[in-house]
Every structure is written in structure tokens, then in C-alpha cells.
């Protein structure tokens, strides 16, 4: 048996599921943001939806500043849900559910909710639109959350929490 050349072995190790699903999916994510930008000039992020939607139920000034954009942000989020549902209907056999423990999702979600608002963006705002803008602020933000997330996930795994 002939062994794979070293680059192929390395690629198989780094990308056990190949790269096409990630690259093609990423292009669609960018395309979705691009469609909105071309029509409206808005670079959309996903996390502001959390605050803008809270303006429907809270009169806090922090949320009320998003009243003008809360309806289209709701539509954007509904679009994301439906778009993923289209993927699921075409490529996935039935619903898929995670095995990650509920307390990890809840506690992690709380940190995500606080952090994205304090840090002015998330993986779509900073990661896709901000990096696409070559924004130094966004590059710093991405570096901060990537490094801390890697550290956190490695520590949690080392403590034996799976998944």
C-alpha cells in the first residue's frame, strides 16, 4: 500500500470532514450579508437582534435606541431560521439535536449575550462584516474571542465534560 503524500495526510488531519462544506457554507454566509449591504448599505450582524427585540418588552434606554431597526432585525433572524430549515429539508434527514449539556448552553449563552453587547459585535458582525471591512477594531475583537474561546473549550474538555 502506498502512503498518501505528506500534504494530503496533514490535510486529512486538520480537516477530517474536508473543507468544501465549510468554504461553500462560508460563501453563502458572506453572500447573505452582501445582498443586504448592496440593497441597503447596512452591514448586518446577528447579535444586535437580542437587544433590539428586548425593546418590545423593556423601556430601558439601552434597548430603545434600536426601535427603528427592530422590525427588520426580527425579519433577518426569521430569515436565518428559515434558511437553515431549507438546508435541513434538502440535506438533513429530519431534525438534528445537540448532545451538548443544557447547562453549558444556558451558561454559555448568558456570557455570549453580555460579551457581544459589551464588545460591539459577534462572529457575524466582527467576524464576517468587520474582518471584510479590514477593521482593526473587529480584528482585535475576533482575536480576543477566538483565543479565549479556544482556552475555555480546552479547559472544559480537560475537566472531562463531554460534550
Amino acid at each position: 500500500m502506498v502512503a498518501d503524500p505528506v500534504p494530503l495526510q496533514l490535510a486529512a488531519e486538520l480537516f477530517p470532514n474536508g473543507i468544501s462544506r465549510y468554504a461553500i457554507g462560508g460563501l453563502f454566509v458572506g453572500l447573505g450579508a452582501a445582498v443586504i449591504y448592496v440593497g441597503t448599505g447596512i452591514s448586518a450582524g446577528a447579535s444586535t437582534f437580542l437587544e433590539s427585540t428586548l425593546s418590545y418588552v423593556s423601556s430601558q434606554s439601552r434597548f430603545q435606541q434600536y426601535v427603528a431597526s427592530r422590525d427588520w432585525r426580527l425579519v433577518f433572524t426569521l430569515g436565518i431560521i428559515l434558511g437553515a430549515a431549507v438546508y435541513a429539508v434538502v440535506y438533513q434527514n429530519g431534525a438534528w439535536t445537540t448532545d451538548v449539556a443544557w447547562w453549558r448552553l444556558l451558561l454559555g449563552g448568558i456570557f455570549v449575550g453580555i460579551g457581544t453587547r459589551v464588545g460591539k459585535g459577534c462572529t457575524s458582525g466582527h467576524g464576517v462584516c468587520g474582518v471584510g471591512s479590514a477593521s482593526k477594531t473587529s480584528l482585535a475583537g475576533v482575536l480576543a474571542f477566538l483565543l479565549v474561546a479556544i482556552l475555555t473549550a480546552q479547559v472544559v474538555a480537560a475537566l472531562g465534560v463531554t460534550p
Partner: protein
Amino acid sequence: MATSTDRHPLFIPLVLVGGLIFGFGLGYSHMARPEVVLNFLQFEDFGLLFVMFGGAAVTGIVFFVMPRVLDRAPLTGDPFERRLKSFDRNVLIGGAIFGVGWGLSGICPGAAYASLGIGNVTILWALAGMFIGACLQGWWRSRATDGVDPSPTGAD
């Protein structure tokens, strides 16, 4: 920013179409599955880099080209600008807090919405957490800015 009364009739439909494509991409790239994100963070599958930088490559081209071919966005009349936010220590502090949450749960806001779409009802735990977090932060920030200090925080 256009208000809801004087908006172009195609504004909301376009946002919906953009969201559909965005969400399809999150489904196709498997980012809607926390396990796949956790595999990346644990150095078992580096595919996530292609998602983020693949997406940024597309927006980068569009952000570069559009201001050079059109003066104003057709549906809003707004100028084409890049997404540039002011830098301060909150970017790093908030980024680090977000990082703890992302590393713990494997899910970020856009991917959480998409996760609902692929039938992952369990992700409602994370969505509840995100709303609680945004609520706590907004309550705290409103108190800080409505109170004695009238100076703008420049948070957005």
C-alpha cells in the same frame, strides 16, 4: 436609517432574502451544530476558519466595490460605508466574555438562530441565556448612562 414609514417596499423582502441565504450558509457549513464549533476550538477540525474567512472574503469584495460603483444604496439612500467601529478596551473585555460563552457552549447568536431552523430545539437553552445576558448588560448599561454621568459612552 430609514424608518418604518418611509421605507422602500422592497426593504423588508430584501432583508428576508439576505437572512435566508445567511441561514442556509450557517446550516450548510455545520456552524449550527455546537459540536462542530467545539471540535474547532479543541483543534480537531479547523474547517471553521474557512467559514469565517470565506464569508469575510465575500463581504470584503462587496464593501470594496459598492462605494466605487454607486453613490447611495438603492433601497435606503444611505451611503456605502465599511463596518468600522471605534476601538476601546470594551472591545477586548466584551470579546473575552463572548469567548468564554462561545467556548463553553459552542454557539454564537447567528448560529443559534440557524440551529433552531435545523430542528435543534435544545438550543433554546442557549437562546434564553443570550437574552438573559443582553438583558443584564442593557439594564446595567442603562443605569450607568441614565444616571449621574451624562457623557456618551460611545458604545455603538
